[in-house]
């Protein structure tokens, strides 16, 4: 019989496998439409950052909101080593250094043939939901760069 520590590890592993199975299954059925789920996922996560971690959206610029979302994900969740937010025209770019989700989920989903695995990216999901809440419409585009970086583009419409 597993120890309590082993049970925790097994439960975590099972949860991860369920997420991978869910992601791959949805991709099989609706293809590119999976990106439409990102804001719904973001709408579930956003209240946690607002109510429990002090995220404020009202009165901020879109880039400041994304900077704060990124900071909370790094400091409170250990989501990545660091993030860098820049804005050029209507495009806000968030560069993520050593995202822990990418190798554990995104790359695994790619191995299962999921061509748009970033619909589960927490920063893209929460960032998109936060921008929608402040009335900014932003198209999402996420890329995995060579090396430790992934890049999320929020293109303001």
């Amino acid at each position: 019989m597993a120890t309590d520590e082993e049970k925790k590890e097994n439960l975590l592993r099972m949860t991860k496998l369920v997420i991978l199975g869910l992601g791959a299954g949805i991709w099989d059925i609706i293809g590119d439409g999976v990106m439409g789920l990102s804001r719904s996922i973001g709408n579930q996560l956003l209240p946690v950052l607002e109510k429990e971690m002090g995220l404020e959206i009202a009165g901020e610029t879109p880039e400041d909101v994304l900077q704060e979302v990124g900071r909370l994900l790094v400091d409170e969740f250990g989501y990545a080593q660091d993030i860098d937010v820049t804005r050029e025209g209507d495009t806000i770019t968030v560069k993520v250094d050593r995202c822990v989700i990418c190798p554990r989920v995104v790359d695994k989903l790619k191995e299962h043939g999921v061509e748009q695995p970033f619909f589960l990216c927490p920063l893209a999901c929460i960032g998109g939901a936060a921008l929608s809440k402040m009335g900014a419409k932003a198209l999402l585009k996420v890329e995995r760069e060579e090396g430790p970086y992934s890049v999320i583009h929020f293109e303001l419409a």
Partner: protein
Amino acid sequence: MPLIGNLAEVDIANVIELARQSGEPGRLIIRGADGEAVIFVEDGEVVHAELGSRKGEEVIHEILAWGSGEFELQLGIPAPERTITTGWSALLLDGLRRIDESAALAGELEMPDILQPQQDEGGGKKMAKKRSEVLAEILDSLLAGSADINGAIIVSHDGLVLASNLPHDADEARLGATAAALLGLSKRSTPTLGRGDFTQSLIQGTDGNIIITSAGDRAVFIGLTPKDVNLGMVFVEARDAAEQIAKAMES
């Protein structure tokens, strides 16, 4: 008493539809820039058409492209002969398809004015409109000119509602996610079932229809109609709107 009207106010396909639904034999005279066409309807079908020396289906194909002129519908007049045996729905769809093809070949699918650079009074360029404003104008223009589409939404592939003009309130986040999923499902279904690439899908409800059309590789156009509308015309309007949206998304 004849029914008289102007094609600038009523689409020619809808005039023919009206003649068909009267249930009586009838003669429809259409006076356009290219001459006077006469169409006869019996038992709910178009049975004869003539324009100058030409007769039959080719006349219908031509007049469907007329955007201006006057019409006069006289009921109770039987057809002098029968030169058309194809059902109206097939005739209309074929005619509209030909219009689409010829317009595309001639490069006549012009960019709408709202996509052109705006000039101020001094001839200089005004600040470009935001994309969301351009998309909203495309929807406003479509709904103002369409007899059948009474609601429309433009959604990005990632589920963002870029513009909407709906006859009722809707939860935009949910609407966007649903639209993106419907598009994804449609795009998956056509090749899986051996129907090639996805172009358009129709969902019919008890109170109306939903037409989903891919608008380039970044957006989806969704049109809403009441039930019992001319779907052939709606499909063409939806495709035209989708082309304008695709151009706006690229700009």
